[in-house]
């Protein structure tokens, strides 16, 4: 039975369906249903990749999913479902307040499933060229979402995002072409396969100099799109100016999907060279991102930019975990991807509620006492923030601990200490910033009923999953992550 094609088709069809639908309610439902179906399919995929031969291929290997892809598919489905649950009520309030037009809301419901379908294609494509154009497609569909409000600032953010993103992707395309060139057989005149699985088989025969050059291009290129410092400058703008459901998807999964593309090249490069070349680069860029994010978190004045910088820090940690390249740290990085995907959307949903109630994201203007005005939002935000800063009993505490202990155990004392320092800095930063808005008594009278209990299903789903999976990881999930860890670590 085919599994991969439906995962791609369902959201794409939902997007096209929303083009012809008139009622907003129907569009919301189409989105929620589509992502519900893909979530169910992704669970089946999870089971499928755990049985030999441990990879699912379709359309003569054009689509291929191994444990790493299956893990990403699951994360994309969960975050998309959460965002679509939140989006309906969010836009209803926006429409009531006159912040958007009905046409723009329709644009959201059409583009979001297409954005998701693009992300699915990135992780399910076997061909590295197809992976590239799928990533470009995600960038193009999300840039219109960033510009949705048509404010001066959101247009600026969208412009930066699309120009820097396209430049980065052009560099990545150069790298992709170089990788392909490395595989061209000097003697034969036939076109070689551009499939990742095929390239892995012949990794030993690829031209090592070409592969090195290709990886540098791909790292800078996809690194730009994944928001690695110092190419991250578009990230806080785009993530803070987008509507909150889109911010959640950009921060929650889109960054990781780009990172996934980078990882495929990292695995290939390591298999070809057999040296720590690519993982050292990942480590350096990861640490750089963590250290760059920390001061910006400490001095941030805008709530959503604060969350965006926190995402930058988490992406940095994931890169560090993979760069350290011990089985424990890679496992920690994969775990971190999952928990972060459950945590960050909740924070953005809460920020969206606060934005709609206070009509500003400047923390100085929001002022003290959000907990009095929006008690449920504040509780959810507090819990998610505790998770994002790495406090127990939430999962990010365990994943950070896993990366750190793995790092120390493997003898990378300096790197691990630096990671610890960066984590502590951002911990203090986020905690300090949120104490400026959550507790206390409000100085300004706010009208709270705008966002009463509406967002409970979305936030409850994500937080509930976070709490459950923090204390209990089902065996299939654990096995998938172990398999994914072996794929990244190069264990055959």
């Amino acid at each position, binding site marked *: 039975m085919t599994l991969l094609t439906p995962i791609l088709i369902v959201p794409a069809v939902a997007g096209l369906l929303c083009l012809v639908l008139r009622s907003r309610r129907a569009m919301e439902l189409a989105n929620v249903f589509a992502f519900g179906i893909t979530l169910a399919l992704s669970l089946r995929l999870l089971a499928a990749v755990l049985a030999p031969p441990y990879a699912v291929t379709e359309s003569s290997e054009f689509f291929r999913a191994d444990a790493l892809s299956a893990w990403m598919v699951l994360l994309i489905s969960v975050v998309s479902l959460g965002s679509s649950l939140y989006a309906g009520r969010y836009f209803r309030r926006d429409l009531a307040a006159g912040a958007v037009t009905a046409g723009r809301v329709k644009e959201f419901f059409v583009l979001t499933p297409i954005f998701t379908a693009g992300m699915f294609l990135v992780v399910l494509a076997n*061909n590295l*060229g*197809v992976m*590239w*154009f*799928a990533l*470009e*497609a995600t960038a*193009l569909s999300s*840039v*219109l979402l960033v*510009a949705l409000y*048509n*404010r*001066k*600032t959101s*247009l*600026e*953010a*969208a*412009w*930066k995002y*699309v*120009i820097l993103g*396209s*430049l980065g992707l*052009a*560099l990545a*395309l*150069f790298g992709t*072409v*170089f990788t*392909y*060139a490395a595989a*061209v057989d000097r003697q034969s*005149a036939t*076109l070689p396969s*551009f499939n990742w699985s095929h390239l892995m088989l012949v990794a030993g025969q690829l*031209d090592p*100099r*070409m592969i090195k*050059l290709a990886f540098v291009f791909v790292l800078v290129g996809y690194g730009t799109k994944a928001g690695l410092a110092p190419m991250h400058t578009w990230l*806080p*703008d785009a993530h*803070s*100016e987008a509507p909150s459901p889109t911010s959640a998807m950009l921060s929650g999964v889109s960054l990781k999907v780009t990172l996934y593309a980078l990882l495929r090249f990292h695995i290939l490069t390591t298999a070809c060279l057999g040296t720590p070349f690519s993982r050292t680069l990942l480590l350096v860029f990861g640490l750089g991102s963590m250290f760059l994010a920390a001061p*910006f978190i400490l*001095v*941030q*004045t805008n709530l959503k*930019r604060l969350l965006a910088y926190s995402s930058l820090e988490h992406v940095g940690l994931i890169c560090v975990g993979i760069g350290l390249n011990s089985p424990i740290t890679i496992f920690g990085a994969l775990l971190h991807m999952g928990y972060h995907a459950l945590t960050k959307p909740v924070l953005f949903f809460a920020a969206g509620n606060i934005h709609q109630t206070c009509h500003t994201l400047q923390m100085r203007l929001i002022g003290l006492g959000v907990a009095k005005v929006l008690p449920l939002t504040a509780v959810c935000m507090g819990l998610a923030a505790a998770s994002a800063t790495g406090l127990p009993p939430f999962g990010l505490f365990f994943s950070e601990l896993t990366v750190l202990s793995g790092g120390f155990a493997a003898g990378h004392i300096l790197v691990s200490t630096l990671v610890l320092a960066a984590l502590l800095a951002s911990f203090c930063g986020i905690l300090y910033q949120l104490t400026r808005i959550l507790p206390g008594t409000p100085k300004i009278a706010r009208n709270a009923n705008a966002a009463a209990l509406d967002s409970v299903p979305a936030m409850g789903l994500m937080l509930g999953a976070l709490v459950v999976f923090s204390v209990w990881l089902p065996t299939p999930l654990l096995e998938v992550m172990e398999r994914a860890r072996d794929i990244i670590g190069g264990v055959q």
Partner: protein
Amino acid sequence: MNPLQSELASQWITLLAAGMLVIQLLMVVQRMLLTNIRLFALQSLMLTAIAAIVAYFHNAAHVYWVAGLTLLGKVFFLPWLLNRQVRRIQIHQEIEPLFNSTASMLLCGGLTLLGYIVARPFTSLERLGNNTLGTAITLLLTGFFLMFNRRKAITQVLALLTVENGVMLAAVALSTYGMPLVVELGIFFDLMVAVMVLGLLVYRIRETFASMDVDKLSQLKG
């Protein structure tokens, strides 16, 4: 294919690639927006010719597709689209670059040198033409320069398109037949959509800011 033919094809490709580079440098010094769009069309025409030569001499049918798509998309459609946009929003014709022509030319000369140095270790891997990889990397670098030297939104789109031309040149030069057709098609489709999305954004920016100057896009900091 006999060696003589192969040599002929290789020389044509070298010549056309050099032509693409010359046009790129002309774009660096040319200040009129509409002329810039025409220069881009001419550069794409040379890329089309390269693809056609490869297809003809190597009997590679799918490269004809690439040539045809480049001709339709980059030589006719995109320049027409950009032209229409320029007329529709009636922008000031002249580009106001950060560096003057002389300084830009000198800088791009330096970038060309850099491009050739980067490509030097890989010249043995080129299968078609001489130094085509160097030319491709130079197109990338000068494209980046164009992007930051020009402060109008639409000229940044043009710069991006020349970078894209560079990638396509590299693909042809390094792997003989370009990439598999499905990838080429995907890239082509993405490019068309990208220019339309960028055009839409330019239009909205123009409406909101009453300007196309990207220096005005500077509210978001920190």
